[in-house]
């Protein structure tokens, strides 16, 4: 049984409970044991970073130190924002031992930092450590007919030099996982556009405008739902959707699902396990598309002779 150190982040027990619970379901199917970091603290999110230099690194570093004690190879992080803070801090202190020492000096009780835990987002863990084949092998209820727009947000693949995962412009890992589940990922150009994240409360206007663009493009792409891997993205796109509707003067009616919810569903969990009641935009209508035939734009059927001429001799 593989063990994975788990950093749930502040929203796991709150806004994103359904992410947390389906994540655990999915991990069980993969036979991965999740060990939550005991007494983890908030990574400081954007705020610590905006206002301070040292605190912004001290908060994540405490978690890194605690995580090392669990002696697992990898730490999986559920929230993209926590992931980014943790990964950036790690990159900075690993590159600069002096800085590491300085920041470590503020962490008295927890002890010393060694730098021997890998930090990954859950998406990255699924894609790299579990693998598409295993994922596909667990599918008992293929999501055929469901068209999804995969939304990565800004921080899962950026900055490329730090995340070293997938493309910062047009990532495909989540799309491939969705395809492995039987769903159809749409061609969606706003995969990594920012949703406004940290301005959710302080400058709602920005969130409405940015998240609005994302919903618009997702709808344009023909998706029934948006899939995300981050609680912040989820809450901006879901909770704010009625306000966005008002601004746009139309109803997007696009539910926003966690990738783990769809994985759980495909692996055989009943819909109620996805905690549909948590969603502001109801997920059922989207899920109703499962089982529908999808019209795949057929390549122009060519007369047999011409096809042969393409590469072979007739």
């Amino acid at each position, binding site marked *: 049984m593989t063990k994975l150190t788990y950093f749930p982040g*502040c*929203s796991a*027990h*709150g*806004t994103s*409970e359904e992410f947390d619970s389906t994540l655990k379901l999915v991990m069980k199917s993969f036979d991965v044991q999740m060990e939550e970091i005991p*007494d*983890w*603290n*908030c990574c*400081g*999110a*954007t*705020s*610590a*970073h*905006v*206002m*301070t*230099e*040292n*605190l912004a690194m*001290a*908060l994540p570093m*405490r978690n890194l130190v605690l995580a090392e004690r669990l002696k697992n190879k990898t730490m999986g992080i559920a929230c993209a924002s926590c992931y980014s803070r943790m990964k950036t801090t790690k990159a900075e202190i690993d590159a600069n031992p002096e800085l590491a020492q*300085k*920041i470590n*000096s*503020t*962490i*008295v*009780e*927890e002890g010393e930092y060694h730098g021997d835990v890998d930090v990954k987002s859950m998406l990255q863990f699924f894609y790299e450590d579990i693998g598409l084949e295993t994922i596909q092998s667990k599918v008992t209820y293929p999501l055929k007919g469901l068209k999804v727009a995969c939304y990565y947000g*800004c*921080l899962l693949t*950026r*900055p*490329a030099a730090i995340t070293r995962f997938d493309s*910062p*412009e047009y990532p495909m890992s989540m799309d491939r996982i969705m395809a492995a589940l039987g769903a159809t990922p749409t061609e969606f150009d706003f995969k*990594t*556009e*920012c949703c*406004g*994240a*940290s*301005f959710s*409360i*302080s*400058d*709602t206007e*920005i969130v409405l405008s*940015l998240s609005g663009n994302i919903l618009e493009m997702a709808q344009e792409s023909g998706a029934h739902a948006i899939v995300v891997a981050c609680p912040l993205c989820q*809450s901006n796109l879901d*909770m704010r959707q009625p*306000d966005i509707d008002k601004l746009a003067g139309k109803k997007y009616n696009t539910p926003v699902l966690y990738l783990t919810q769809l994985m759980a569903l495909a692996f055989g969990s009943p819909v109620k396990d996805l905690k549909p*009641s*948590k*969603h*502001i935009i109801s997920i059922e209508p989207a899920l109703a598309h499962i089982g529908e035939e999808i019209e795949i734009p057929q390549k122009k059927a060519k007369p047999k002779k011409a096809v042969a001429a393409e590469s072979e001799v007739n």
Partner: protein
Amino acid sequence: MIKLGQQIENKFLEAVNNKSGNNVLDCYQCGKCVGTCPVSDFMDYPPREIMQMIKLGLKDETYMANSMWFCLTCAACSGRCPREINIPYVMESIRHLAIEENEYSDSGKVKQIMKFHEIFIDMVKRYGRNYELRMMAEFNIRTRNLFKDMHLAPKALLKGKIPLGVKKVKSTKAIQRMFKMAEKLEKTQ
């Protein structure tokens, strides 16, 4: 009109470069960052213009801009900058410099954003974690906007989207000590 030529040394540029680990002089004003930045429309000077202001040594004007407060650190711009400038780092360093020198815009928006971050950090200091409901409430009280987002509250609360309490960190003492020491480090710099 901006008058140049009165001072030769550009201390401001030097300070930003040192703090951000970039050389702002690398910027050749292509504007790729501006078209990329999701919030450039909300900034009074988009990233490209901030770069030029730093190059010209316009410290006060830069500090008074709201741009660095709006920057989401989304790193979209830096991923596309042809001169490999880490723009969010530059934004961050002018933010920190502005805080250090206690000179920044007192526009409502900037104040609101700072207030939010202050409250957030405060929550973390108190509980080791974020207490979302409390934070929203406090934000609304402190920004005198009691009814902001109130329309969302019933539904969100009902759906358990926003929990009523917070699971505190057990060792809040350790967290608070960390805060103190980090603050001290901040000052000694």
